[in-house]
């Protein structure tokens, strides 16, 4: 592991946002992920979104589980407190943190192994509780840190680098989140910052459980050969594609495409994923239609992207618990301790 201190010097001409910070003030440490990792692109979009929203970085708490994705919070918002928790259990820690201080912005960063495999239970329950958070899944369908095992979002029929075939059905976290009661459900691609930055900004402003399932190619281990979304399959349908911006080697994969269109993304190992962006007139408020849309695209061999479902007026966990406006961690003895006189009454009632 290398830890290179980033120079703190900023170019004086860097633009400042309304709280007087430049984009650089939202950065973190230098990434130790593989060069070209989609996760770094996502980190960059988080930086961009927070800068554009002029959020004070220390008002954000970043929480993650374990895995490549969960290392990412070190690489953005260096002036925010971060918490790298245990594998698959970030949602509960974030829930507790949110209960303690409702005034901060909670960003949960996780991966497909962390959220869909070991952490599926907590993923589901944090959504159904309506915790006010931005839950970002950096989804590459593979275990990177342990070198290439399948995760639960891997396509059925995928072949791993070492030749193993995945016979288990893949979990679609976006559909699951909708079913579990998340009130903001979006999917995007790490290389599409034009789609991702506005989605992250919207998710931060959403006063409820917001999840972004971000497809993020693994440059080291992702191998979808033989998958239903194979390269050959997509090449045959090439004319349907809107635009493809694909760079080989170890540069980040980028993709920009228009609403209502789809794009084939070639992954580092030659496999391909097809993304279909929702159209401008898509109505995200209809839960049943959102689920149907995801299913239809999947049937057609595509992955639906964009803001898939939105309940614009959610009730979050604090609303359900009717907690006071002041953060619970700021309350003091007069607010919390009933005192000795009350205790005398309680004693009297116990005789």
């Amino acid at each position: 592991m290398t830890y290179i201190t980033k120079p703190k010097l900023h170019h004086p001409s860097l633009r400042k946002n309304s709280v007087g910070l430049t984009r650089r003030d939202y950065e973190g440490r230098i990434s130790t992920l593989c060069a070209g990792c989609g996760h770094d692109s996502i980190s960059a979009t988080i930086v961009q979104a927070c800068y554009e929203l002029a959020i004070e970085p220390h008002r954000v708490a970043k929480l993650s589980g374990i895995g490549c994705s969960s290392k990412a919070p070190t690489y953005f918002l260096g002036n925010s407190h971060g918490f790298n928790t245990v594998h698959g259990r970030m949602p509960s820690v974030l829930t507790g943190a949110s209960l303690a201080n409702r005034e901060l912005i909670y960003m949960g960063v996780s991966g497909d192994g962390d959220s869909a495999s070991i952490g599926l239970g907590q993923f589901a329950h944090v959504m159904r509780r309506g915790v006010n958070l931005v839950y970002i899944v950096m989804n590459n369908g593979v275990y990177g840190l342990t070198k290439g095992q399948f995760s639960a979002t891997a396509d059925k029929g995928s072949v791993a680098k070492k030749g193993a075939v995945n016979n288990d059905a893949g979990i679609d976290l976006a559909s699951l989140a909708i079913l579990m009661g998340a009130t903001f459900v979006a999917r995007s691609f790490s290389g599409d910052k034009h789609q991702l930055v506005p989605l992250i900004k919207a998710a931060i402003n959403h006063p409820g459980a917001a999840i972004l399932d971000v497809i993020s190619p693994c440059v080291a281990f992702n191998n979808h050969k033989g998958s239903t979304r194979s390269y050959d399959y997509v090449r045959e349908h090439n004319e349907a594609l809107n635009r493809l911006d694909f760079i080989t080697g170890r540069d980040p994969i980028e993709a920009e495409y228009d609403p209502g269109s789809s794009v084939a993304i070639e992954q580092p190992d030659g496999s391909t994923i097809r993304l279909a962006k929702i159209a401008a007139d898509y109505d995200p408020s209809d839960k049943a239609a959102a689920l149907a849309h995801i299913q239809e695209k999947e049937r057609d061999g595509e992955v639906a992207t964009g803001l898939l479902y939105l309940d614009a007026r959610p009730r979050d966990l604090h609303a359900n618990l009717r907690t006071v406006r002041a953060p619970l961690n700021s309350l003091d003895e007069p607010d919390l301790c009933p005192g000795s006189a009350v205790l005398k009454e309680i004693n009297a009632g116990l005789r």
Partner: protein
Amino acid sequence: MRQALTATNDFVIKFANVNGSGSASANELFARSILRMGVPVSPRNIFPSNIQGLPTWYEVRVSEDGYLGRRGGIDMIVAMNPETWAQDVAEVAPGGYLFYDSTRPLAPNAFRDDLTTIGVPLTAICNATYSDPRQRQLFKNIIYVGALSVLLDIDSAVIETLFGEQYKGKEALIESNVQALRLGREWAADNLEPGICGLKVAARDKVGDRIFVEGNAAAALGCVYGGATVCAWYPITPSSSLAEAFASYCKRYRHDPDTGEARYAVVQAEDELASIGMVIGAGWNGARAFTSTSGPGISLMTEFIGLAYFAEIPAVIINVQRGGPSTGMPTRTQQADLLACAYASNGDTKHVLLFPEDPKECFDFSAAALDLADRLQTPVFVMTDLDIGMNHRMCRPFEWDDTRRMDRGKVMTAEDLEAGREFGRYLDVDGDGIPYRTLPGSHPSKGAFFTRGTTKNRYARYSEEGADYIENMERLLRKFDTAKALVPQPAVRAAAKPTRYGVLYFGSTSPSMTEALDRLEADGLHVDAMRLRAFPFPDAVRDFILAHDTVFVVEQNRDGQLRNMMTTELGIDPARLVAVLHYDGTPITANFILGAIRGGLAQYQIVPLERAVS
């Protein structure tokens, strides 16, 4: 016929009922009425892991001397469950009493010659009075309380007062209960031979200002007073009533009078993994948080407990212990989670444990645990058990000093940071092993750090350097050493004369131990006693052991877990420590302890002085 037992204010009566028949409140009423007459009682629920239909028992020990441990043996059985009839009748001491519903005749061989049989046609009385089947069932329980009150000389006015308090504002309920009570009393007065029962309750003034409360409710109240604002839990016997009591006390005392808003959050999590995760998240973010659970929950929480230890996050875990391992005996009591809690987690860890003896200490220690967790930035366990948690126990009244302030520990504020104080999350500035922390959101540019379960250096940076790791682990040991002076100190009861023999015990063993020690002393057997109240063990524990040739270690588990800890933590020669182990799931009795200690002393040729000279 054997001589019938006679005793005033010193007997055990056991109620055998069917779970879900409404007997619990009638039995509690019975126990409470004796308490109101100024006579100490200690009731115990012996219940199945079941909601309705299985046998359940309620054992009430009446002890003018104030002994609250389980005595063992039954002087009177109130046999209301045909299914357990044979075992219930067999359990009564010779000369004891069998109280039963005589509506339906039973074969003569269902009875014992050496017991006094008292039949009351409870069903017949109910059927003649009530038409609603539910009422017939519920009032049958009150009717037997009425009949028993005549037999035992319990003041009916006291019971009627209790109805008045219990059903305050519901006059119809008071009236119907009083009526049922009188039905039972009248039938007994008219039909039972006066003097048939030699067991009597006589009013005394032996209760004083003591209160009667379950340990779980007491611990919950301690959390309210101690300033807990977040409770995350998952239902598990025998701890569920603790979180529920917390919610109910908070409902009463923690809502803003103007807005009605809550100054607390209770979340029933999806499992114990999530409940401890929430507690840790809240603790990390500066709120006082706790969870209550039992053995299997601890097993599930273990990974997170390691995180809280290593990343140094306050958390309070109240473990209402039950019989283990695995699902074990969910409705029976044990003290068998010491090792699982003291060393929870992979890797090297040590955790602070507190051992309350009764509801009063459940209250005190729960509040103290919240302070300790913040001060030490680590998980703190309150190790209660089913015997304390789920039974009403007479204890000293709760006390609170209004000048007391929450100890929030070493939290560096925005002002501290602004003033230029150096911040290193794991820097041992004060030499006590306890570092300073900052809370998220405190300062725009200073004090942010990354919390992680991986190794790190003093400034919370990821590090796999051996030197960083060792420095950190050594500091954690220093911190644990600091805890020694902060935790509740052991309580010593010295024998009347100097002795080479000692006994160590803790938690719910306390009332039986008190009784055993009194009886040993009465026998002229002198044993010094120390009640442990916490781990890490203060130095006084080691001194106590070394001051005696032989120390009995009394605990309610199979493997002598505390004894193991004495040898590993204090370097005590195991030969010096004699294990006294009770672990069948029932609460330990004075008789059991006496038997073990007398047997042990006899081995060393220690006999009572009187016997030696006679």
